[in-house]
């Protein structure tokens, strides 16, 4: 077992993890943060996207020990005092989700997008979110939601 000390949604956590344990399993099983979703397992769908030191990261393909000393942000850390953040609100207002399984990953990826690009154009949005798959919406309303924030 390895010691893992990292900040999750601003809170310092210390855990024991197996070397093979994936970040997604530690978040979901040990910390109960089930908002992060597992889908493709191979870093192509983005459903498990979390921010590790601000960078969008596939938690399904990251060893938990790699996050040692890092700040990890998950979907559960966005809403403050029961109020959704502006990205969550925009997804809701624009109908940018249906089944909702890809949504936490999308919201985290958009978070990173808007941190790195203040005013992304259409091409930048499409390029940046290339690593997030949605099977329900056809992406139309997701793009509209993101554009509403620019």
């Amino acid at each position, binding site marked *: 077992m390895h010691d893992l000390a990292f900040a999750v949604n601003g809170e310092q956590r210390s855990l024991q993890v197996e070397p093979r344990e994936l970040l997604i399993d530690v978040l979901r099983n040990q910390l109960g943060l089930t908002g992060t*979703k597992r889908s493709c397992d191979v870093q192509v769908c983005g459903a498990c996207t979390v921010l590790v030191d601000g960078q969008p990261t596939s938690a399904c393909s990251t060893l938990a020990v790699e996050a040692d000393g890092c700040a990890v942000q998950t*979907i559960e850390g966005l809403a403050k005092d029961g109020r959704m953040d502006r990205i969550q609100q925009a997804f809701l207002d624009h109908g940018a989700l249906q*089944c909702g399984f890809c949504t936490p990953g999308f919201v985290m990826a958009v978070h990173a997008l808007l941190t790195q690009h203040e005013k992304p154009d259409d091409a930048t949005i499409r390029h940046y979110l290339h690593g997030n798959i949605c099977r329900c919406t*056809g992406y*139309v309303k997701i793009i*509209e939601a993101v554009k509403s924030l620019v």
Partner: protein
Amino acid sequence: MTQPAAQIRRDSAEKVTGEARFVTDIALPGMLHARLLRSTMPHARITGIDAAAALDMPGVVAVLTGADFAGLKHEWGLFLRDRPLIAIDRVRYVGEPVAVVVAEDEYSAEEALDAIVVDYDPLPHVTDAEAALAPDAPLVHETMETLKDFYFKGEAKPLPGTNIFQNYRYECGDVDAAFAAADHVFEDAYDFPMVFHYAMEPHCVVAEYSVREGFTLHSCAQSPSAVQKVLHAIFGTPLSKIRVIVPYVGGGFGGKASVKLDPLAAGIAWKLQRPVRLCLSVAESMLTCRRLNARVHLRSAVAKDGTLLAKAVRVVMNGGAYADTGPAVAIKAANRAIGPYRIPNLRLEAQAVYTNTVPGAAFRSIGGPQAVWATESQMDTIAEALELDPLELRRRNLLRRGETVRPDLRSIDVEMAEALGEVSKALPHRPGEARGFAVAASDPGIMPIGSAMVRLGIDGSITVMANSVEIGQGVRAVLAKLAAEALNQPIAAVDVAETDTLTAPFDWGTGASRSTVIMGCAVQEAAADAGRKLLAMAATTYEVPESECRLVEGGVLVRNQHHTFRDLFHRYFGIDSGDVSGIGSITPQYRNGAFLQAPLFWETAAAGCSISVDEDTGEILVKDYVSAADVGRVINRLAAEGQDEGAAMQGLGHSLFEELLYEDGQPVNASMIDYHVPLIDESPAHFETILIENGDGPGPGGARGMGEGAILPVAPAIANALAAGHGVRIKHLPLTPEKVWRSLRAAKAGL
């Protein structure tokens, strides 16, 4: 654009914050984890399974194989009883479950899979449907036991001694005479690929069993009542002791319809009498079900002026190793190949064939995309040969409201020219881009059987209990709105309970675009029933005729005096407690038999696209896409548009790049690394959805079901644009860059 508050879906608010609970998120005390060892052979006898080493590994609780279920009547199915709970002595496709490892945690279960040794004695295999039809083809099943009226009405017509598990024929008019007399006869064959649903959430079931309590399943099933039925058939447990709870489902598209993983999960729990979680990976879901690939042979007899005189359809579908609902898919493919056209003479033939591949299954508009791909491609071929505008050829043949697609089916309930007209008006015409169009008519809304309950508490809060599954389409918000409207209460007062067969009455299932109409009507009826009871209580309590009472927000208005529900209940029951329940049931006899004839409504679609083609690479880029659906009435606009957009985008996948490939009996791209679904940068720059509302559907307020139609016209619209703008007609989907490039080269070389 901001969504009106009344349209905001409560499920969306939970999903966007990560609070929403899916089956994959459920952890029960003492829960074990199961992983499956899957066949590596396309077709083989199992001669031995050695699990001793796996059983010795840390954390492993049990290894189960077919032998552990020998005492059960374990073969199950929906149309044919052809499928074992887990492979017994034979495997029929690569990926078939052969053994289960149950362990204290998922990692231990996964690790132990490698320690199991299975000995196989290979049998000859067949993966292609046409090859499976050959007289000397290996038989995937030696016997075929059909189940009549089990899940769908009717039964499959297998041909014993062959691989054909469904052999459907229909004929009307004098087809041969019409062909003999026609000015033109067009004959073509079109291929549609094997494609995977890829719901983001893989299949997952958490199952519990005890002799006293029976089964409780937390499942991602789209048809919980079908799960109950199959478990009842296998285990003999009374239906009342088979409880299926369905939380939010992370997409299904038909891949979680009928019954999939539940019998095996239930079997593990039954054997071990401990809660067990069986959660597949997406790669395993790819080995669980997929759309039936098909070859569609079309012959059309056409008059000089483009009038369609006769059509002969022959569909051959690859049904995979187990029939599932393939027999219904085949029939629907034949029906949906007719098109929304006036054709007096029809010959429909459809065969579904066993092969050693992943079992075929329902997928958004069953049989529809396969059929419409063929029919709408051929319409443009006919137009070109007759030197007619493709839109004009369609207009000359499109059905008017009240005419029939097939004389034994309900007459069409929309004006088809309206949707096509709207699309052609809305689609931009840009230089350098080619345009293509397609239309479709499908016969969904099956099985008018479903009930719902509505309960109003003393505080005015309302609970709707209905077994429709919230799979992303927004059904809970629709039902909440309908209940609120029927009881004249604010939508915020209404909760729709989680799908649970213990608390909500029977519903056939969520699929075939049926919930808004069938469950919508059931909820309206249930709310009306509760409303009648409330007014009767008010009349008694306040000693006035019922006609002088009406429901208003938070209570009843009696002769202009507002009484809260609390006041009414308190006086009526004598204490400050109580509630009122209503039940509504939809049956084939509903509205004097108005729901009896199939289809309940027609789900139609029209679409147009403009594309550009990189002639150096063969890559097609869809620039503009316009989709129209005649939905009767929109209940939640954003949700309805979202369904339409999502269906069209899903269709873009099978049009341009999706195909599960087999070589030597092995699936060669069954992982999300190799299998490509549409990404955000492949969505058209301009996408427009037109929802036509004439209030003429059978559902609430004149609504029709929707959500499937938009997947139908995508592929032929793109292929028609390619043919119109670049002179190549491709009859095999997907339209990959390589295929397009080779066709363009061949055309240039004059081949």
